[in-house]
């Protein structure tokens, strides 16, 4: 249905391959590879949300990580605003670290337990806005806390004093701190209670509208994807087996794997 207009493309992934070597034999040679991501191509439009769905181990997290150089790219290219960022040096990639942010799956694990909320959220500010003084950073952090639905009095607390949902809000605040364009949400709700999941998804949607963000939303749960995505990529065993708009995927899934994923989604009956 939708013809993607090139001008509008924020991110384009072409024939991406990420292979991890396996050491075997007496001399532990690199004889074999795990093809975590195997020849994947897709595009993300500015302002849209692309859902990336697949069971665990399908390679979706690897794709997310390879976009911010947390995973090594074996082959293929990643273009951000038509700029090839695949082989960029750490230094020239640095500005993109401000534009692209990540939200992690496990809010218990993604926040350093030894740091306060202020320290956690201000960390990206310290990196990308070195010139800011402490009061300015503090003000910004307080602002962000309010934006994600927390109170500014929480600023000097430690992560273990918060619930899972609240922690994920801190994670989101951290991602928003440097005013990014593009956020990779790596299963941000999968370890949360269902009721909390909805709150977080709503928060993300609100923020997208307010701040004109682009999301790559990774999940193993089609129900979540359905709610938030404009366009859906279905992945299994390192390959994208089906990609289409959210609507068409749900109405007429082509691929058998997609069908089986859909079958597993609990649907509330409309009756």
């Amino acid at each position, binding site marked *: 249905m939708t013809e993607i207009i090139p001008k509008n493309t924020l991110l384009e992934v072409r024939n991406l391959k990420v292979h991890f070597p396996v*050491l075997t034999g007496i001399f532990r040679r690199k004889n074999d590879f795990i093809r975590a991501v195997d020849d994947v191509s897709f595009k993300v439009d500015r302002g849209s949300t692309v859902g990336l769905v697949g069971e665990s181990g399908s390679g979706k997290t690897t794709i997310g990580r390879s976009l911010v150089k947390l995973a090594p790219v074996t082959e293929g290219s990643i273009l951000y605003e038509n700029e090839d960022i695949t082989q960029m040096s750490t230094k020239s990639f640095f500005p993109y670290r401000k534009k692209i942010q990540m939200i992690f799956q496990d809010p218990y694990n993604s926040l350093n337990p030894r740091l306060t909320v202020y320290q956690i959220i201000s960390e990206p500010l310290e990196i990308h806005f070195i010139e800011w003084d402490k009061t300015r950073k503090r003000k910004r952090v307080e602002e962000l806390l309010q934006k994600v639905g927390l109170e500014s009095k929480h600023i000097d607390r430690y992560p273990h004093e918060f619930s899972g949902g609240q922690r994920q809000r801190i994670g989101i605040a951290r991602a928003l701190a440097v005013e990014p364009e593009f956020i990779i949400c790596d299963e941000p709700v999968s370890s949360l209670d269902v009721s909390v999941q909805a709150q977080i998804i709503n928060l993300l949607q609100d923020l997208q509208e307010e701040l004109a963000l682009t999301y790559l939303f990774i999940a193993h749960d089609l129900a979540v994807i359905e709610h938030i995505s404009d366009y859906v990529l279905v992945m299994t065993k390192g390959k994208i087996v089906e990609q289409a708009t959210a609507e068409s995927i749900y109405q007429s899934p082509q691929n058998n794997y997609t069908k089986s994923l859909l079958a597993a989604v609990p649907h509330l009956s409309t009756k």
Partner: protein
Amino acid sequence: MIPFIFRRLFTLVPLLFGITLLVFFLMSLAPGDFLTPIKQQRDISEEYIIELEKQFGLDKPLYQQYFLWLKSVLTLDFGYSWTYKVPVTELLGNRILATFLLSFTSITFAWVIAIPMGVLAAIYQNSIFDRLSASLAYAALSIPEFFLAIVAIYVAAQTGWFPIGGFTSIDYEFMSKSSRLIDIVSHLILPTIVIGIGSIASIMRIMRANFIDAIRAEFVITARAKGVQEGIIMFKHVLRNAINPLISSFGFALSALLSGSLLVEIVMNYPGLGQLIYQSLLREDQFVVLAAIMMSCTLLVIGNLIADIILAWSDPRIRFERDT
């Protein structure tokens, strides 16, 4: 499993190479050499010393000395002991066996004492016995081995119940077969106890923890539910499961003891590998030191290997990992 064993043994090669190189280098840093003490003897002419230097290859540059040695090692010739004037291999044989024997008796001693104690401490958890044995274990872990060895010698000297040091008695050569056996055993008693005491403490603690874990296991509850006698549960089910992980520690204990008995061997004058290395090092008897250290490293690696194999054997759930 075979590739695993091979790989482990293969790692020995760079290890031995590195260690011998290191030891060789360190020994060459120390001033003087094997012949230095001879230089202080008044009736030895300088020409004689130069002749000896030539004979021992000490006049060659260091790296040449090392490679000459390496070359002969590759042909399984470990060189000559400068002190004893015999091939090093001949010297090592008895020493290794003596050290091995001592390690073995002390492990056995430790197990025989520690396992029942650990079991009792677990069964009567938090009782006076448990507390007492725990404090004894702490004490045993904290006594320096050599201190214990001195005390043991003192006791032997005061009471005369045990021979002081050595491996056999003076009149060993004139004994009958059976009294020879008794003689060796009586010489082993004190060093065995001294070395064993440290391990008793740690084995006991492990055993106690294992046993407590096993008591809580489901099969115990099931057995209780079926009305099996408590004693039978403990012995038949719990003990067997608790003891398994310990068997695997056998290899580790062995390798630890091989390097750990050095001080005790010195203090108690036990003719083992450790004593030989120590004395040869002091005398700068290079080839003996090199070969003996190679030997003890090999034993260490083999001990660890045995530990891994026994572990896999006694617990089928453990496979040989691909990445270790």
